[in-house]
C-alpha cells in the first residue's frame, strides 16, 4: 500500500517533467515550464480561493441579524472536534504545500542547471546599462545577440550597485551583485527581439536601464560575431 502511494506520487510529480523536455533538443524549455507550472498554480489557488470565498459569502448572508436582540449560538466544540479543526486543515494545507514544493524544485533545478554545451556570455551591470562580453572577445552594450535554439549562459556581475538582469519573455531573472559572480541561462526558441530590463532598484535612471536580446539564426550570429571580434595584434 505504502509502495503504491509512493508510485502514484512519483507519477504525479514526474509526468509533467517528461512533457517539458519535448522539442528543445535536449535542453529543457524553462519558459514553457514556467508557464505550465504557473497555470497549474493558478488553478490550485483559484480552487482554494473560490471555496473560501463561497463559504464566506454564504455565512455572511445566511447569518445576518434578523432581530436586534438576537445573539449568536456559536458551536461548543468537543475536545476531539477542536483538535480536528486544527489538524485536518493543517494536513490539507501541508499536503498542498509539499505538492507545490516538489513541483517547484523540479522546475528550479532545470533553471539552475545550465545545460551542457551552453554558450557563455559575460554581462556586467552598471549605472545604467549592461556591458556584454563574448568569449571570442566581441563586446556590446545593451544589445545581447545570441544564436537561436542554443542554451545561453549569462554570467552576471555588477560594476557598482545591485542590478537584476530580467528578460520577461523568457521568465528569467537574476541579481547582478558587486563582487559576486551569479548566472542564469535561457534559450531563444525563435529568431526575434525581447526586452532586457533592470529589476533591482539602482538609482535615478533605474527605469531607463534596458536593452534587448536579439535572437538570430546561427549563421547570421556567427557572421556578426566574426565582424565584431577584435583582431589579435
Amino acid at each position, binding site marked *: 500500500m505504502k509502495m503504491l502511494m509512493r508510485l502514484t506520487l512519483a507519477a504525479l510529480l514526474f509526468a509533467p517533467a517528461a512533457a517539458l523536455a519535448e522539442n528543445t533538443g535536449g535542453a529543457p524549455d524553462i519558459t514553457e*515550464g*514556467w508557464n505550465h507550472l*504557473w497555470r497549474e*498554480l493558478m488553478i*490550485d489557488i483559484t480552487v*482554494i480561493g473560490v471555496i*473560501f470565498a463561497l463559504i*464566506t459569502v454564504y*455565512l*455572511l448572508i445566511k*447569518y*445576518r*441579524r434578523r432581530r436586534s436582540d*438576537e*445573539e*449568536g449560538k*456559536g*458551536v*461548543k466544540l468537543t475536545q476531539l472536534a*477542536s483538535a480536528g*479543526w*486544527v489538524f485536518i*486543515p*493543517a494536513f490539507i*494545507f*501541508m499536503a*498542498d*504545500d*509539499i505538492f507545490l*514544493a516538489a*513541483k*517547484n*524544485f523540479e*522546475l*528550479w533545478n532545470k*533553471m539552475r542547471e545550465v545545460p551542457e554545451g551552453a554558450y557563455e556570455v559575460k554581462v556586467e551591470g552598471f549605472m545604467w546599462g549592461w556591458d556584454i562580453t563574448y568569449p571570442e572577445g566581441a563586446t556590446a552594450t545593451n544589445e545581447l545577440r545570441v544564436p537561436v535554439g542554443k542554451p545561453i549562459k549569462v554570467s552576471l556581475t555588477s560594476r557598482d*550597485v*545591485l542590478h*537584476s538582469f*530580467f528578460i*520577461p519573455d523568457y*521568465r*528569467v*531573472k*537574476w*541579481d547582478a*551583485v*558587486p*563582487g*559576486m559572480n551569479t548566472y542564469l541561462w535561457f534559450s531563444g526558441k525563435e529568431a526575434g527581439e525581447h*526586452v532586457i530590463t*533592470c*529589476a*533591482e*532598484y539602482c*538609482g*535615478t535612471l*533605474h*527605469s*531607463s536601464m534596458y536593452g534587448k536580446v536579439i535572437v538570430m539564426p546561427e549563421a547570421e550570429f556567427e557572421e556578426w560575431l566574426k565582424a565584431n571580434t577584435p583582431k589579435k595584434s
Partner: protein
Amino acid sequence: MSSTMVTERVETSVGASSKFSLKEWIFTTDHKRVAVLYMIGAFAAFFVAGIMAMLMRTELASLGPTVTANPNTYNVWLYFHGAAMILGYQIPALTGFFANYYVPLMIGAKDVAFPRVNALSFWLFWMGIVMALLTFVIPDPPDVMWTGYPPYSIITGGNTAFYTFTVLLMGFSSIAGGVNFLTTIIYMRAPGMTWGKLNMFIWCTLAAFIIQLIFVPILGVAVTMLTLDKYVGTHFFDAAAGGSALIYENLFWFYSHPAVYVIFLPAMGIIYEIVATFSRNAIFNYKKMVYYGVMGVVALAGLVWAHHLYVAGIPNWLVLIQVFSTLIISIPVGLLMIGLLGTLYKGSIHYGTPMLYAAGFLFLFLIGGLTGIPNAMSAIYVHLTDTYWMPGHFHYVMAVSMTTAIIGGTYYVFPKMTGRMYSETLGRIGFALFFIGVNITFMLTMIMGVKGMPRRYYDYQQFPEMEPLQQWATVGSYIILLGAIVVLISWIHGAFWGKKAPQNPWGSRSLEWTHAPSPPPPGNYGGEVRIPDDWDPYGYGK
C-alpha cells in the same frame, strides 16, 4: 454579574479631563491619550504617504514625464511612501494606537505598566515622523527605497542618514513599547483575568511585541552599519574591501519579514474583535487559534526571511529550506482565517461600518494570502520578483487588508474613544469606494507584474503596451482617495457633531464596552476590577 466586577467607582476624576488643555495632552501619560496622539501621527503619515502614492500613480498614467521630468523626484516619493506607510503608519497604528487604547482596557488595568516609558515611546515615534517629513525640506532627500539596499544607499547623493535615523527612532520607540506592553499584559491583568479569558486582540498584540523585541534590534544594526559605511568609512557592504551587499539584504529581511507579522497579527486581532462583537458570537476554537494560529505565526516568523533573496545569490540549500518554511506559513494563517469563518457560523451578523470592513478583510486578505503562495515557490518567484506582481500582492495582503483592520478598527473604537457616534451612511459610502478602488488598482498591478512590468519604475518606455492598464490602475487610486476623504469627513463629523454614544452601542461582552463609560476617564474603571469565574469576553448566547 456587573455589580461584582468593579468594586468601587470614583467619579471625581472625570470632570478634570473634560476641558481641553494642550499642556495636559503634551505631558500626558494616560494610555488613551497617548493612543489618540499615536492615531493622529499614524494617520498624518498615512495622509502624506498617500499623497505620494497619488503623485506616483498620476506620473505613471502616461508614458514619459507626466508630473515631473526628474526621475529622482519620483524615487524620493517612492522612498517616502514605503518607509512612511510601514514605519510611520501601519506599525504605529497597530502597535501604538490600538495597543495603547485597548490593552489596559481589555485586561481591566488602570494604565500600562510604565506610563512614562509609554510617553517616551510616543515622543520617539513623533520625532521619527518629523525626521521622515524632513525628507521634503532637506536639499538631498534620501532616495534609497524603504529597503535601503547598499551599495546604492552608500554611494547615492541622497541623505541616507535620514533614513537610518528615522528607522532608529521608530525602532527605539517599538522596543520601549514592547517592554511596556509585554509587562502590562503579564503583570497588570485584573484579578481573575486569566490567560484563557484574554481577548484575541491581547494575544495578537502579545505575539506582535514578542516578534518586535526579538527582531527590531537586527534592523537597527543593519541601518547603523549602512550609515557607518557611508559616513565613517567602514566597509561592511563594500565588495572591493571584502564586504558584501548580501550581508545587508539578509539582516534587513531578517527583521523586515517578521515585521509583516508585527503588522498582520494585531490587525487580525482587531478583525477578530469586530467579527465576534458584530456577529455576537464566541470565537471559534479560541484556544487552538491562540496556540496554533497566533503562536504558530510567531514560531515561523523568523524562519522565512531569505525567500526575499531567492535570486540574490544565496546558496541553493538555503533556497530549499526557505521554500518549505514559507509554504508552511499557510497553515497558521489558514487556521486564523478558518477561525474567523467559524465565528460567523451561527452568529447574528450586524452590518455596521466596522463589520463591513471586517467582511472586506475576509476577501482582500484571501486574495493577498493566496497570491503569496507563488512567491514562496522559488522557480515561479524568479519571474515575479521585483515586478508589479510584488507590490500588487503585498498591497493586498498587507497594505490594504491591514488598512481595513485599521480603518474598521477606528470605526469600532470610535464611540468609546470620542463618546460620539459616526454617521453610518458616510461610513458605508467610504467603505464602498475604498473596496472598489483597491481592487481595481491592485488587481491591475498584479496583472502588469505577470506581464513583466518591473517595480520602482519612474517610466516604462520599454513596455508601452502597459499604458492602458497603468491608466486604469490610476483611476482606481483616485477612487481610493475619494474613499479616504469620505472616511476622514465621517470621523471629523462624528467627533464634533455626532450623536452622544451610549456605553455599549454594539452590545459587546468585552470589558471595555460593558464596564467603562464612553469615553473612559483617566484610570479607566474608577476602581478595582474583579473578573468572575464565569465571565468570558465572548460569552454571547448565555
